[in-house]
């Protein structure tokens, strides 16, 4: 505690190495690299702020006459973005919660109890998550047409063309990664903790829900951040499993946007940025969780 308190006061200034030419060169190189990395996005922002008349006369590579937010308003309205954001929300949130719930259950079972098939189970989940989606997609598409649902759950009366179908494949597919990461984490929780709870007569479910899950909060937060971006960014599942353009999530609906106004690049830029916005916000607010989740999945494995 005292160590962390002392740090900012004196030693930091002494600790920082003196500025040498090599170090200055390093900074110049890194700044340039960052600018090149950010350039495509900044270019899109610049294009989105200009009017169609301006760019069609002067080209994109010119000083803007005026900057306006009109394109965003237009994309919002013409692209019917609120509707598609809502579709995405209806898919992403349930898929995210159920994925974390189910995979934490498996991870709990596998890491706290020793069965013969523990390792096999973990391998199946891990391998499943690494498969290219195209390996699965054709039979899945056909399977979805076979599974019948009551009309109140899906207008098509099958899993195809319904949000439920997309949610299900996200859960099944993403569970692999989450189970892998969570079981690695749960193995680091001292076994004596659950042992003590068991001796005190806590049921298996209480050991899971009241003891193990609260300890996993940091990983769960990291995984939630990651899974939000991944499910939000999904393009393929929705493209294949949803045929009614009206039910598409926002990422796949971008496809429709372009069809509507093919020539107006400024509008497309504005639309793309609006679609990117939620993930960018999540990234900037929860960057630590995002990075942490990805490293958790790799270094321990």
């Amino acid at each position: 505690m005292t160590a962390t308190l002392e740090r900012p006061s004196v030693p930091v200034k002494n600790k920082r190495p003196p500025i040498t030419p090599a170090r200055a060169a390093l900074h110049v190189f890194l700044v340039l690299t960052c600018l090149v990395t950010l350039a495509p996005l900044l270019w899109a922002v610049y294009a989105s702020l200009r009017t169609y008349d301006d760019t069609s006369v002067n080209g994109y590579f010119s000083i803007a006459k005026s900057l306006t937010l009109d394109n965003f308003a237009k994309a919002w309205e013409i692209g019917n973005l609120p509707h598609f954001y809502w579709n995405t929300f209806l898919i992403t949130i349930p898929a995210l919660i159920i994925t974390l719930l189910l995979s934490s259950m498996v991870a709990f079972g596998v890491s706290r109890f020793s069965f013969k098939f523990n390792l096999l189970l973990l391998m199946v989940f891990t391998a499943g998550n690494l498969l290219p989606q195209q390996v699965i997609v054709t039979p899945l598409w056909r399977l979805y047409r076979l599974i019948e649902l009551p009309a109140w759950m899906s207008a098509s009366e099958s899993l195809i063309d319904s949000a439920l179908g997309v949610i299900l494949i996200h859960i099944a597919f993403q569970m692999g990664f989450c189970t892998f990461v969570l079981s690695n984490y749960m193995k680091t929780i001292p076994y004596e903790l659950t042992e003590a709870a068991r001796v005190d007569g806590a049921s298996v479910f209480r050991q899971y829900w009241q003891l193990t899950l609260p300890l996993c909060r940091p990983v769960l937060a990291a995984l939630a951040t990651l899974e939000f971006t991944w499910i939000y960014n999904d393009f393929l599942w929705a493209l294949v499993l949803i045929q009614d353009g009206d039910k598409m999530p926002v990422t796949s609906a971008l496809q429709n946007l372009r069809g509507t106004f093919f020539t107006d690049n400024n509008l497309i830029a504005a639309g793309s940025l609006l679609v990117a916005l939620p993930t960018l916000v999540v990234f900037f607010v929860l960057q630590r969780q995002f990075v942490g989740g990805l490293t958790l999945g790799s270094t321990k494995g």
Partner: protein
Amino acid sequence: MTALQEKPKAVAPVGPPPRRRGKRATALAGTDKLVLGLMLGIPTIVHLMFVWVPTLGSIALSFSRWNGIGGFEDIEWIGVGNYVEIFTEYPRFWPAVQHNLIWLAFLLVVPTCAGLLLAVLLDRELKFSRIYQSALYMPMVLSLALIGFIWQLIYTPDGGLLNSLLGLSDNPVDWIGDSDINLYAVLVAAAWRHTGYIMLLYLAGLKSVDPALKEAAALDGASATQTFFRVTFPVMKPVNIVVAVVTVIEALRAFDIVYVINKGRNGLELLSVLVTDNIIGEASRIGRGSAVAVILLTISLGVIIPYLYQTFSKENRT
């Protein structure tokens, strides 16, 4: 069809879950057994049903001729006919294989080297390090579909950024439309996103390397370069394996970006496109598409199995 065959397999883990081994799972009461069985069983069934059953379905369907729309009674079993046709006649197959290989080689070389270099540069006490990292990670949160849209603003022949910067406005290069170069144009965009991820993995890897190793090497008179290539890099073997697996899988999965740009035609054919074309494109040949899917599966198992072996054999020992 395959779904029926596979069901017993899917249910199997639910049956005997609380098999007692050793002293750990001793006092499991009846309800606890049931709860644990459900906790493990339900997720496993969901996973097997929607991931592994369709995978086996792809294998089965690859031996058939079927349009996918009619009932199962329309399926005509034709043995390895689809594979023979793909290898000998299907005009889009070999270009797709070539493009996937170029994709893989490009990702293995460019983002891996760039990511490793940036990680090494950032792995030190450095002012603004957090800001640099944020900027370099940022493309990672964008979807590849979105990246396809954003990069088209750069590549477009009329007034695009690239042609303007290169001074080619009068004689514009069609970066996306020219089938000789569009693959590389798209790969630059894909690498743009992949580099941040690789950098993140290597940064974590570098942090986990024991500093004592580097000090020992320095004491023995090794230069910084020697220390890196002879000590640090070999010690990071687990990270290198993860990077390799992630890159291969990413190269096999590549789809969104080419589909957004031109639906995977005219120089941008990929194996993934050949599969998807049979359900959302004009072609409706489930058998041939499934055979391509099985080829994808075979290649991906080539990295998945060694990865599993590496990951879980270590676990067995501890």
